[in-house]
């Protein structure tokens, strides 16, 4: 109302601008890193625009600029054609831009509705919660985001929590939704659910920016793709239809990526890890492992397939000494390792890549140097007589930085400033460099770019050729099939069966068998039925 009438403005209803978001020449520099180097980015109304790039390419930085978390050093942002400057996330959300981070920012003890209303000026004090409950339920229904508004956050699965985050943004009037690696934390079925939500949102005019490292997801959901490499745009808004995985990978890393590495035949050695009838509880005290028996031999990679939450985490912890075994035994080279200390395993050449790199795998405020010596600081020459040899530790950290391509200005940088993929590299460097005899790798490629995944796969295969025994726990069936010599399938804490993987393209029957086992059908039953069908 108070809007002054601009003189000489003959066009009262300008045509809908072609872009909801237009970023021009964005530059963002961090000490020692040029994270965004004159980046242009355009988002059309109602599209799903994928943002792709190697680890540390500057994707999160660019989106943090758009979401008002960082201020660009130079460059312009236009929303619906109007230049804006954001100096806080609140400014951005007022302009209709909402970002959903990889780590959810929800209060576990509060309900969905309370979390959504939290921090809003209106209502400042919640008097009549149930009125908002129904409002939120309605909003949820509109976009296919079904969650119970009265449920407490801690009761929800990761996928449901993500929906709450989306609802939170929609409730604040977000028109553009930025999702930074939303699928990294989801199980395969949940990913399907997320995709149908995204489609229903774009159908109602919302626009979505989607960051992911999984190329098959990009080709499945995105309308257009923008690719970043080392802070620069290498492909701007190309239509995603028709792009192959290989082409995408090429744009990202600037070379051909080999998806199926050649697996050299390796003579299988002695049994290294032998797990016999292991039972263990989870954090809540409920049985998580119910009689698991598997073994891993020298020179082989054994995969453990299964939908997340079927005991994989607990199994890795029991092996590495972080969790007590209630029954059964675990032997490493014939020596009992179950119910011993973590150091016991470390001293016997056991390496462990934990699934949670920020909460378990690293100490965020300590330096890269402090983080790479985490599992060998007791050993000479890093320490002698209880004293750390810091110059040597720094030298060692620099060697690993070189050898494993960790992008960080200096090894004294606290690791919380590293990009996701670089953090994973710090962990990998630390674990693999010790020439382990046995290794448990849990989701070792989660959050890594295709080039880096290839690198990790090479490293794992090299370890196998060097005679290490590797237990690979992953939810990526494709990864398991291309690396493993054998695959066990776990379901509700029990092993459903074991299959051998022959070199070459896996046959569809085998994949189907694994899929059936993952949903709880034991192998014997599948085989009996198979016999019946054929008979």
């Amino acid at each position: 109302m108070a809007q002054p009438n601009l003189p000489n403005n003959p066009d009262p209803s300008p045509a809908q601008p072609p872009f909801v978001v237009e970023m021009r020449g964005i530059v963002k520099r961090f000490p020692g890193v040029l994270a965004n180097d004159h980046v242009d980015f355009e988002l059309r109304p109602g599209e799903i625009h994928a943002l792709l790039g190697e680890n540390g390419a500057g994707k999160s930085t660019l989106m943090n600029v758009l979401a008002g978390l960082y201020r660009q050093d130079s460059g312009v942002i236009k929303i619906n054609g109007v230049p804006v400057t954001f100096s806080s996330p609140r400014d951005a959300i007022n302009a209709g831009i909402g970002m959903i981070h990889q780590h959810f920012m929800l209060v576990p003890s509060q309900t969905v509705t309370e979390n959504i209303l939290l921090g809003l000026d209106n209502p400042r004090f919640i008097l009549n919660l149930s009125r908002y409950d129904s409002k939120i339920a309605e909003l949820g229904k509109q976009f296919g985001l079904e969650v119970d508004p009265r449920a407490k956050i801690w009761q929800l699965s990761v996928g449901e929590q993500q929906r709450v985050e989306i609802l939170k943004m929609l409730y604040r009037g977000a028109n553009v939704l930025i999702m930074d690696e939303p699928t990294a934390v989801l199980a395969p079925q949940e990913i399907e659910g997320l995709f149908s939500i995204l489609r229903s949102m774009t159908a109602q005019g919302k626009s979505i920016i989607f960051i992911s490292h999984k190329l098959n997801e990009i080709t499945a959901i995105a309308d257009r793709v923008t690719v970043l490499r080392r802070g620069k745009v290498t492909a701007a808004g190309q239509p995603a239809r028709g792009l192959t995985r290989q082409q995408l990978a090429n744009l990202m890393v600037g070379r051909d990526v080999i998806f199926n590495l050649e697996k050299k035949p390796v003579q299988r050695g002695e049994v290294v890890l032998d797990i016999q009838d292991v039972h263990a509880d989870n954090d809540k005290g409920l049985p998580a492992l119910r009689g698991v028996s598997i073994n891993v031999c020298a020179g082989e990679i054994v995969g453990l397939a299964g939908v997340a939450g079927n005991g994989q985490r607990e199994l890795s912890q029991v092996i590495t000494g972080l969790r007590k075994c209630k029954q059964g035994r675990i032997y490493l080279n014939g020596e009992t390792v179950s119910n011993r200390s973590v150091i016991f395993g470390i001293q016997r050449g056991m390496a462990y890549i934990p699934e949670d790199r920020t909460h378990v795998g690293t100490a965020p405020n300590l330096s890269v140097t402090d983080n790479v010596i985490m599992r060998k600081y007791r050993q000479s020459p890093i320490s002698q007589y209880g004293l750390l040899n810091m110059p040597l530790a720094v030298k060692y950290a620099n060697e690993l930085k070189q050898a494993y391509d960790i992008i960080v200005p200096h090894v004294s940088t606290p690791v919380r400033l590293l990009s996701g993929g670089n953090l994973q590299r710090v962990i990998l460097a630390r674990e693999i460099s010790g020439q382990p005899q046995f290794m448990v790798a849990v989701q070792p490629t989660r959050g890594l770019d295709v080039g880096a995944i290839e690198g990790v796969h090479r490293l794992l295969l090299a370890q196998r050729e060097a005679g290490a025994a590797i237990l690979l726990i992953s939810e990526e069936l494709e990864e398991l099939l291309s690396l493993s010599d054998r695959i066990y399938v776990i379901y509700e804490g029990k092993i459903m069966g074991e299959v051998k993987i022959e070199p070459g393209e896996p046959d569809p029957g085998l994949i189907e068998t694994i899929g059936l086992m993952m949903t709880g059908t034991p192998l014997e039953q599948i085989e009996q039925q198979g016999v019946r069908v054929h008979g």
Partner: protein
Amino acid sequence: MAEKTKLFTRIKFYRIRIEPRLSEPPAWYPPLISVGALILALILGGILIKLAGGDPIRSYAHIAKASFGNIGVISDTIVKATPILMTALACSIAFRMKLWNIGAEGQFIMGAFGASAIVLTKVLPPETSRWVFIPLMMLAGMAGGAIWGFIPGYLKAKFNVNEIISSLMLNYIAVAWVNFWIFAVWTEAGFQMSPKFPLNAWLPRLTDYAQNIPALSGLTTHMGLLFGILAAVILWLVVFRSCWGYEIRLIGDNPQAARYAGVNIAKNTLLVMMLSGALAGLGGMSEVSGMVHRLQTAPIAAGYGFTGIIVAWLSKLNPLAIIFVSILFGALILAGREIQPSGVPKMIQGIILVCLIASDFLLRYRVRIVNTAEEK
């Protein structure tokens, strides 16, 4: 008139917003903020002195003179700083592991008690050599503090009892315990204090060497300072250059990662609480043996343990920084004793504290003034 309303509406549209800081502030920012906070505190203190009818400039000059004016008062400042230095070191190592040891006060008192017991139980004849007395008193002092640290440490490690509560409660028990002994057992002619220690149980002071170097006459700075500085340097080496210190830093930053690295958290909880107690206990020993020369509650239970918490925090838990910050606090305490009315330095001490602690906020948040009218 019109001007005024316009100004008013303009102000109305400005709002102050506080937002979490997402990127690291540059390296020069934290020290600048601390200095700024100090200056602000002095200005605020000055205003209050003015309001109370005093002359701020003269009061400050007086405080400065009372604590750094000549070699004599500098020595007194150092004497005051010594116990704070020890308790701050004690707190810093526990806080580094995110163990909130609020019991340095009690550990300090028990250290004083342990050291005194060596003298007062008369296990050694009073003419025993210094070379026997002092080391034994040091050991006993550290043991007394360590035991007082062990109790909350054990409760935490074994039963996950909150160490804040248990260590705090132990402070009161320590005072009552010492009171019992000086009232009932070691009382000096019915007074609430023990007899004076024999000279050989005193820590050497600068003034003891006045015969050879007359300039040292009257300077009561004692060897406790040396213990403190040595302890600070050793503690720095332990924290940043030893495996044990590495484990402590790891637990403090991420206990889950520490477990993954094979660190025994329960064991370290016990050890760190005992080390923390032993450092505070050594402070108690140095105070009775270097300064008070008898066991007496009032000068021992003077709140050094609590000041230590603040000093440790302001020094960002860095043992070397603690040396300087505790001297600053020693000066403020001394000034408090010297000037009348003694409320002024206490008040300034409080204001400095509030400002410094509040300034920490600016490291983690930024304050912006926004025009809400523009947003609409």
